[in-house]
């Protein structure tokens, strides 16, 4: 038997998902081990191996056809600021570009944070000003050299940086994207002077226009690069010792995997790769159940996140904001707000209004009902008061919830000041939280020109299945899916991933453009893609490429990524015309009929190539679906509050583990699983599909 293994290392748990040749999924879990994450990885594999009836992790790893991995070490290094002491070398006269940040002091902040000017300030830079050196050199927008690189100054700059403790060097010169000679020359000097010093060039890590964003990307890469390299090399050697034959494949933030070397060169690509694995899993599951348009929602303790799959393609973000810095490294697109089970409900003392979030109670002190020190009522507390959560069966009974204490907190902090009952207060908290989440989804769909009614909604995260049908109903979404693998969906995504390389080139082209020019650039990118994928072991027939351009109306700032039809050999005049028309169509869809101003003309800014090495996907089989009513899974009845009735209703409770594919019943109902609770509202209908996912048909449709 051969296996495909995915290991997802999170902050608390390390998940392992294994698929065998028959398509059976086995799961393993272990605590993460921050002192050396590879131990937790092996432990989670050992747990999965034991669930498979194998002797140990080694027995599993020896038989692994593919090994996938996602980690949060890049994110953690940035958040805890424990990366390499990084020096930055820039064009003389422009050394403040990173610190100036184009003046974008409010980037990545909420409106409320931005409005409070006395508390508004820039993030602490990842390179102190003292570690920025300026070197005389200048290239212009055409790529023409205006000032030669001053080698003497460059050498002294490196000496000074090293003397000031720099362990890693980022180089970002103006216009290196059209002429990288000076950056390449800098790399030569660096290699000659300090061969062991980690360095990174902006023209390699982010070959896109915009010196601020490019320098931020380069600095992030230099900052986390050394640590990522050490980490991955250690992981690889530990796994090899355990018998793994193949190179581990590492998840990237755009939702594809790369080998160890490619990942180390472009370390910035692993930032936020954990959620990317999840969305890859979402798309994979979607394919199996025949859904191509998916709203993936994740409601955890303090954050609510939304990502999109449209027409089977994961929505991407080419200019993401990471820790308030704009970077040029493609990742999956995620919109988030501070709303989760742990979001605190509070009364604004000045206005007497009920507010929910954005502050959260986190794991400690946690919601009141956890009884581990929290005194502020949260969304989860409201869920308990309303009867959605079971005080005796939270996390499958592993945690007892304190209902008396929860009621008292909601009474004292919310109900009394509002002159309401505890239940009215809890219902208010529940509704406000749901409305904030639906407002976010609206922003993620309607404001981008997508109709949420054309999507199914996936609910991930412990708190989501309690709320999902409500925020779905608010938007007219007709179906909610609670995947069986929801609790390990990151690892599930890993096993269904392909090897994906991303290439791009900034090139300012006014339409109409000669296809020959476009083809020339794409052929350069293609050549690199075939070389990289061949090195990763892919034959030409296993390679799939997608070409696209970032296009906009002239004089505008915001661009749309316009794909060409996949699999074209070369681009013709007709293809160019089609992409121009497609842009108009996408534009009007996003911004409204009549908003497109074709007379302004169009321009291309960036050409992009996605090259995929296709991997054989695990073959997950559906079970036979036989219509049944679910009564065998009925475990009892309890009083649950539903807004429709404005009162508690005797509600049937089902045991997820006893439900079988095809089971179907009408709401109101509760389904309890060992990891979460699914609320089926009145007028909705629930069913278990052939993959043991719960489907909720909102409004019974």
């Amino acid at each position, binding site marked *: 038997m051969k296996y495909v293994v995915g290991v997802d290392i999170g902050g608390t748990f390390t998940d392992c998902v294994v698929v065998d040749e028959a398509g059976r999924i086995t799961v393993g879990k272990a605590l993460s081990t921050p002192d050396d994450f590879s131990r937790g990885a092996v432990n989670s594999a050992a747990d999965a191996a034991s669930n498979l009836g194998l002797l140990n992790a080694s027995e599993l790893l020896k038989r692994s056809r593919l090994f996938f991995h996602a980690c949060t070490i890049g994110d953690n290094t940035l958040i805890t600021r424990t990366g390499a002491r990084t020096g930055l070398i820039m*064009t003389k*006269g*422009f050394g*403040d*570009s990173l*610190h*100036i*940040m*184009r*003046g*974008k*002091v*409010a*980037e990545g902040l909420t*409106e*409320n944070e931005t*409005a409070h*000017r*006395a508390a*508004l300030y820039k993030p602490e830079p990842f390179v102190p*000003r003292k570690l920025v050196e300026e070197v*005389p050199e*200048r290239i*212009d*927008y055409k790529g023409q050299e205006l*000032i030669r690189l*001053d080698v003497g100054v460059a050498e002294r700059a490196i000496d000074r940086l090293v003397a000031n403790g720099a362990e890693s060097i980022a180089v970002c010169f103006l216009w290196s994207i059209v002429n990288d000679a000076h950056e390449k020359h800098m790399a030569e000097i660096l290699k000659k002077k300090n061969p062991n010093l980690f360095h990174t060039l902006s023209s390699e890590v982010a070959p896109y*226009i*915009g*010196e*601020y*964003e490019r320098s931020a990307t380069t600095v992030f890469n230099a900052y986390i690069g050394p640590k990522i390299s050490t980490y991955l090399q250690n992981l690889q050697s530990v796994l090899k010792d355990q018998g793994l034959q193949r190179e581990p494949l590492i998840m990237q933030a755009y939702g594809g995997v790369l080998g160890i070397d490619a990942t180390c060169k472009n370390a910035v690509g692993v930032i936020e790769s954990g959620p990317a694995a999840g969305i890859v899993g979402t798309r994979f599951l979607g394919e199996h159940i025949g859904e191509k348009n998916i709203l993936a929602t994740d409601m955890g303790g303090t954050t609510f996140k939304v990502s999109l799959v449209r027409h089977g393609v994961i929505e991407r973000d080419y200019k993401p904001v990471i820790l308030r810095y704009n970077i040029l490294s493609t990742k999956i697109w995620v919109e988030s707000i501070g709303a989760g089970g742990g979001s605190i409900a509070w*009364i604004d*003392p*000045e*206005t*007497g*209004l*009920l*507010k929910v979030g954005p502050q959260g109670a986190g794991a400690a002190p946690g919601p009141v009902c956890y009884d581990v020190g929290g005194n502020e009522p949260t969304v989860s507390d409201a869920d308990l008061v309303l009867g959605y959560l079971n005080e005796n069966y939270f996390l499958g009974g592993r945690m007892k919830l304190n209902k008396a204490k929860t009621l008292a907190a909601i009474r004292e902090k919310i109900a009394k000041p*509002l002159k309401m009952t505890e239940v009215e207060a809890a219902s208010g908290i529940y*509704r*406000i939280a749901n*409305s*904030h989440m639906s*407002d976010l989804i*609206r*922003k993620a769909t309607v404001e981008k020109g997508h109709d949420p009614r054309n999507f199914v909604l996936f609910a991930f995260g412990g708190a989501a299945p309690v709320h999902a049908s409500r925020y779905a109903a608010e938007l007219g979404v007709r179906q909610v899916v609670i995947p069986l693998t929801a609790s390990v969906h990151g690892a599930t995504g890993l096993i269904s991933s392909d090897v994906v390389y991303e290439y791009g080139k900034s090139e*300012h082209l006014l339409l109409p453009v000669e296809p020959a020019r476009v083809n020339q650039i794409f052929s350069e990118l293609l050549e690199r893609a075939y070389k990289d994928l061949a090195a990763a072991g892919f034959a030409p027939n296993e390679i799939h490429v997608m070409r696209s351009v970032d296009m906009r109306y002239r*004089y*505008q*700032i*915001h661009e749309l990524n316009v794909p060409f039809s996949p699999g074209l050999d070369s681009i013709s005049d007709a293809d160019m015309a089609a992409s121009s028309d497609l842009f108009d169509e996408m534009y009007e869809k996003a*911004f*409204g009929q*009549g*908003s497109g*101003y074709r*007379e*302004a003309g169009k321009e291309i800014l960036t050409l992009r190539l996605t090259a995929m090495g296709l991997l054989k996907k695990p073959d997950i089989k559906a079970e036979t679906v036989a219509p049944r009513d679910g009564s065998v899974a009925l475990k009892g009845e309890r009083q649950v509050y539903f807004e429709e009735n404005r009162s508690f209703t005797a509600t049937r409770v089902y045991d997820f583990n006893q439900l079988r594919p095809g089971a179907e019943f009408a709401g109101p109902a509760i389904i309890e699983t060992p990891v979460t609770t699914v609320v089926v509202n009145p007028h909705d209908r629930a069913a278990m599909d052939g993959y043991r996912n719960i489907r909720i048909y909102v409004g019974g449709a």
Partner: protein
Amino acid sequence: MTSNPIVTSVDPITFEILSHRVYQIAKEMGTTLERVGGTVNTTQMHDYMAALYLANGDVLCAGDAMGWHVACAGVAVKRIIERFEKDGGIHPDDIFLLNDPYVAAIHQSDVYVVSPIHFKGKLMGWSATFVHVMDIGAMSPGGNSPNATEICHEGIRIPGIKLVERGELRKDLFDAFINMTRQPVMVGLDLKCEIAANNVAKSRIQALYEQFGSELVAAVSQEMLHYSEAILRKRIGEIPDGEWRETGSIHAGDTWKVDVALKKTGDRLLFDFTGSSPQAKKGINLPYHATFGACYEAILSTMAYDLPKNHGALRPIEVIALPGTVVNCTAPAPVSLNTTSAGSTAKFVANSVIIQMLATSEKWRGELMALNVGHRLARHAGVNQYGNYYVSTLSEGALDGTGARSDRDGDDTGDGLSSHNIEWVEANFPLLYLFRRNTRGGGGAGKFRGGAGSESALTVHDAPQGKIRGVALGVAGLRNSGQGLFGGYPGAPSLLTLIQGARVEETIAADQAPDELAALGGDSRLLPYCEFDLGRNDILYMRMASGGGYGDPLEREPQQVLRDVDEGVVSREEARAIYGVEIDGDEPRLNQTATDKLRSDLLKQRLQE
């Protein structure tokens, strides 16, 4: 701790849910403008307004528009109602346009698009936007005309037309309008983006009526106004009564004075501009609603930053400005330069009196920030490297430094807006940057230091005509700049300088970075409001405003001063003279003993003065 509830006519949960939604809709209008807009002002500089209104034209929700725009926008819809109610009619899917500063705009470049929102045939509310278009057919490209002496020199002026009639775009009017500008394509794009934003608002609000019922939405809307008004009145009421004064000046050839007295009585604020200079025959004059807006913005950015921006928040404010003055001009006074002259001066004096008032309050003192007003900017026009005529703005104005606060330094180059990358500018226009950096020593000294604004220098590069045309804007009044607070020093004011005949090409040809102006020579002159040519070997030097300091510099932590010296932000001489800190050694080191003595000497010296 909880007082009587402010929201009474709808339940607080419904209020929270619906007011949040209304705010999201107003925000989405702004996002649409930014994404669809054609000009730098809209897409980068946030120089636009997007708001929802009640049926009577009161502002319901203004998203995240600037405060003074909100106040002006409060007039726009009312004027359209007055004009069209009887004559022309207000029908479903009509859209109106206006840009007359004597009606509602600040200056003609601010083009309003106003749209009624009907539901089941009944007028329920309005939406409106304005963007600052890149050209308005005035005598100078870009709309700001330094040589204008009356408003008729300043371009198209429309008190109100119906641009879209029952959903049909009046292409004749649309084309007539854009045809009068130098940049018909770009202005057309701006109008389109405004139409799109208003369409978005209409469809979202109609969906809200559909879902919740128009009566409930109307009730919540009334409560939203009431909410802002009640809280603001309460906050004002908590502050001791009093009167505070400030004077600012506009230097643009002559000097004009802007005087204000703030009288705080109970829960009302009265700004009295009596004593301000008569209006000028130069476009520095403000219409009344803009003066009102400057006062509102000062309140909004300090004691009301967390309140929904709507008509309720305007009600506790009263502004007296005599007709015929620079703060309440009458036709035909020109206005096109007013945002950077009387506008920034009115904002400066209004902020100053608000700060003085808040300083008397324990509750608000910690929230005070030193100022950084008075930014300048430059427009530029000409033929670019691709042979096309263009008009644009250098977005350095986004790179002001902020004032110091009660607990930390101000930020360098970060005032909430965003500037362009240098590469973006050079890719689109025939310009070459020589440097862009934080102005060394720019921030005002203090216990907490003000943030430095940027300083940049540009020359022409690959300009087919060998030169481009520039328009320099901004007050030269040094007094109304980044004043310090509680003993903090002022920040460096912004200025624009033209250096002609410098050794730019020679320096570059010698492979030297042209990043020190002193080494480049040439004839240098300050640019007041004027047009100028920028040719080969000419340099446009732009310095943005730095923020003032907070508290006595002698109280600054010596270790902080050491860090400032180490990073090159403060020189050793300044450390000694201003901060009383002695730094020794090649590698900067703090001399604590000498510092203690120096600080004590400096304090004694002050007592003797």
